[in-house]
């Protein structure tokens, strides 16, 4: 009887009910997983292609917002009918590798370490369309950058290169003077922005500014420093000379002070110790005597 029962049970195991929550055939979580893989690859695709020049925040905000939306869905969807296991638990807690969890943290880390939130706010996914808005300082910065580019274009007659490293331009010498006010404007705006922002300036802007500066100082070779060496050299020689004079005159003029030695009461050298120590015969340690 027992044998039959065991046999029956093992048959039941093999032909198990695959609508069981762990082995769903049409589980909503698997659908999300499917979608997640698509969205993640499109975000990564976007991010890598915009790595240089850096345009992650502005360029990939739509894919990121969709991904965020999907990640939010993980907590709200359940894998079983009884609504006890969320998709997040279902996808993440049954193995040690946790691909989904790693993916999510990777994506979010890229986004947060670029400080994208300080230039793009209020992005959300409503029925597949992405709404977002740039912060005020970002739009201002973009405007200033456009003014700068326009100025350069006017002065050189060429479009500002996207990557300022490989550029064979015959230099137009008046770029520096013509565009200096515009450049100073954007530079000072950027410096002000870095001082105002507490947690970090959006990497898009930092990178744009870096390239602008590189362009300005390396490609067009605009320098604004023209120090007056003579004054500095003069002071730098003058003060050490005073020091030298001071010490030498101290050496010749300074007086060594004498100190009084105080009289110490000591045993008189030629007094007999016996007189001091007492009547007892004096035995000093020298055995030869």
């Amino acid at each position: 009887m027992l044998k039959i029962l065991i046999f029956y049970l093992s048959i039941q195991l093999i032909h198990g009910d695959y609508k069981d929550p762990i082995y769903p055939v049409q589980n909503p979580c698997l659908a999300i997983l499917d979608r997640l893989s698509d969205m993640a690859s499109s975000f990564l695709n976007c991010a890598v292609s915009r790595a240089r020049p850096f345009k992650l925040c502005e360029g990939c905000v739509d894919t990121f917002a969709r991904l965020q939306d999907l990640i939010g869905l993980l907590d709200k969807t359940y894998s079983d009918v009884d609504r006890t296991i969320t998709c997040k638990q279902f996808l993440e807690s049954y193995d040690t590798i946790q691909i989904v969890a790693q993916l999510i943290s990777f994506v979010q880390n890229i986004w947060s370490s670029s400080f994208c939130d300080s230039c793009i706010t209020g992005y959300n996914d409503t029925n597949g369309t992405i709404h977002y808005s740039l912060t005020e300082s970002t739009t201002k910065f973009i405007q200033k950058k456009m003014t700068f580019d326009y100025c350069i274009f006017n002065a050189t007659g060429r479009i500002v290169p996207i990557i300022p490293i490989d550029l064979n331009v015959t230099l137009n010498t008046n770029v520096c003077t013509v565009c200096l006010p515009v450049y100073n404007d954007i530079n000072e705006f950027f410096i002000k922005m870095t001082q105002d922002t507490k947690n970090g300036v959006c990497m898009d802007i930092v990178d744009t500014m870096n390239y602008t500066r590189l362009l300005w100082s390396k490609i067009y070779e605009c320098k604004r420093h023209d120090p007056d060496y003579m004054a500095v050299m003069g002071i730098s020689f003058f003060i050490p000379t005073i020091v030298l004079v001071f010490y030498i005159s101290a050496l010749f003029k300074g007086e060594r002070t004498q100190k009084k030695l105080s009289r110490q009461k000591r045993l008189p050298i030629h007094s007999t110790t016996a007189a001091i120590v007492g009547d007892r015969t004096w035995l000093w340690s020298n055995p030869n005597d």
Partner: protein
Amino acid sequence: MTEDENQPLLDESGRHHTYTSLNAYITTNDNHERTGSHTTFATGEKLISGRYESLDYECDESEISHMEEKRLGHQHTRRLAVLKWVIMLLIGICTGLVAVFVDFAVKNLTKFKFSYVQNRLDTCLSEHCLFTPYLTWIAINMSFVLVSGLLILWEPAARGSGIPQVKCYLNGVAVPHVLSLKALIAKVLGVIFSVSGGLAVGKEGPMIHSGSIIAGGISQGKSSTLKFDFHIFKHFRTDKHKRDFVSAGAAAGVAAAFGAPVGGVLFALEEGASFFNQQLTWFIFFASMVSTFTLNVVMSAIDGHFGDLSSPGLINFGLFKDVPYMWFELPIFILMGVMGGVFGALFNELNLRLTKFRHHYINRHWVLIIEVLLVAATTVVIAFVLIFTTMNECRPIKTQVELNSPTIQLFCPDGQYNTMATIVFSTPENAVRNLFHSEIGTYKAWSLLAFCIVYFCLTCWTYGIIVSSGLFIPSLLIGASWGRLVGIGMHNLFPSIYFNPGKYALFGAASQLGGIMRMTISLAVILIEATGDIVLGLPIMIVLTVAKLTGDYFNEGFFDIHIALQSVPFLPWQSEVFLSRLSALSVMSAPVTKLKTVEKVETIFRILRAESHHGFPVVDHHADETNNERAGTFQGIILRHQLITILRKRNFISLNDSLRDYLTLDDFRESYPRHPSIESVHLTDEERELYCDLRPYMNLAYTVSHHSTLPRIFSMFRGLGLRHLVVVNDKNEVVGMITRKDLARFRMIHKKGHTSIEELGISN
């Protein structure tokens, strides 16, 4: 055979011992008294200054103290223990708060100065007015440092790092004014202005001194400077208790400065407290912990996240995370230790010579002030020249940290910063942290070398001018720069292996500090605690040990040199071996001024006016009228301030009367620690004819036989913390008296393989 019994060490035939006796010609009393005063040009370590007195560390063993003990009973001891905990708590809190104040003030003054100078620099670089920010910078620094210098003129005890003074105090020497409130004010304000004034100084040494002063002040519950008295903690108004508290204060200072409570305790143990017990260690640890955490709480509140207790001490080396080291690096560490020892010894030697020069030739007030101003100006010049010569050394601003921290662009193209300017413009603490933690390639080897050499000379020159200044951070900075240089060198030699230059900077810093200070365990623990990495403990220990061994081959530790230079009668842990040839007879002072157990007021008054001694043996006056010198067996010792108190309180009896109304210990404690002088006592002629009974007040002091050798006397003196040691003969008659200066004047000198005993003169 009796010819030379009291000068056995004078026989020098066929030996390498030479005996240069400064006292030989001034101590021959009686017959041919030398006329006039004897003077010497010797200063510093060749002399013992008479202005230093010992502390009374001995327990009072007099009749009245026994009476008080009986009266107060056991409850009193328990109450004292509770009070001690309370005082330790207060010491910790106050030291922590002072540390916060110093840090806050320095940060803001520096920020103010640099932001102003930097703005002017930025505009002037293009407008041909570079000399204005340059001169402004010089002027600001000079005015800051002038304030610091004037403070030291106001209270000279606050000069320098303060560690030598604290060390002397804990050794049992009463350094004048070392624990006064004036010294605290001058120290704290002085260090704020000298660090903000851009000098090559740190604020850690002064923190230790400040902690000690705070402890000394709190434990007394009164201030003699401000003339107020809370009438609390009266029972701690003895040198014995005060010294315990001062060692706790020193530890709390270290703990606050480095964020290293254990290091603080070990510092007190190694450098300070000569007398220790388990309970005191625990008390001191408590004070250090409280100090560290007070600092943390307040600092985190200032930084805007109150309640975060992990904000570390005044200096923060930053955590070394995941910095491994391999077995093959150990020889390199040993080599670095040798380098640190050599550089440290060189530093000490140069500073020793410079200090002697200053003692001799720069000793007027206005000359001292001019020197300070010149040092301040030259420091700026050197910084400026350094920036100018490395003007093309630019690094792009990459990380967010660099973006947020003050990076200095100067001559660099926009978006880049000058690395040297960033070191020079930031506070030394930040510079050390940069050297420890910035990535490889940040600094070029040549500019680091230039910086290292220049800063070495600058630090050496700066220590000793009249500002309150620490040496820890400058030494760390020197060491970190050459250590980083070693790291860069290793990286270039073996490009295939990754050498973290920051790690080498740390070991360089440790080694340089060890080479200068010659401290061992406390330094190791402080560095481990400040870097928060126990894994680096072994290499730090290796580096410190090697640095100390190498440095000791050449000269002494920095603070020991300075203690000797101040002519302090400092007693080391033990007497040196060869001194056993000296006996009590050749060490002691004789003849001794003695008092009888019942002494005439007139005599006491006369003796006190004539003699400057602090303790007088009391003898039983069995009459031996033929030779008054050795009359009477030894009974005890009475101290000068006790006698003065007795005279002031008119505690007199007539000859055949017996004493009824005793003075109590409270009467004697009243004037502590600044006892009135005998000049303040005025007696009428009738009073002079009366008598004093000294028996209830005299202290049953330790005695030593005249046979005893110097090492034995020394260990007794040191171990028990004595002030007076009476030499008696076989009949218990007083033949001499030994005090600290009698012992400290003998010194072994080792020169070119010869060893000799040197006897130092004692100046007024």
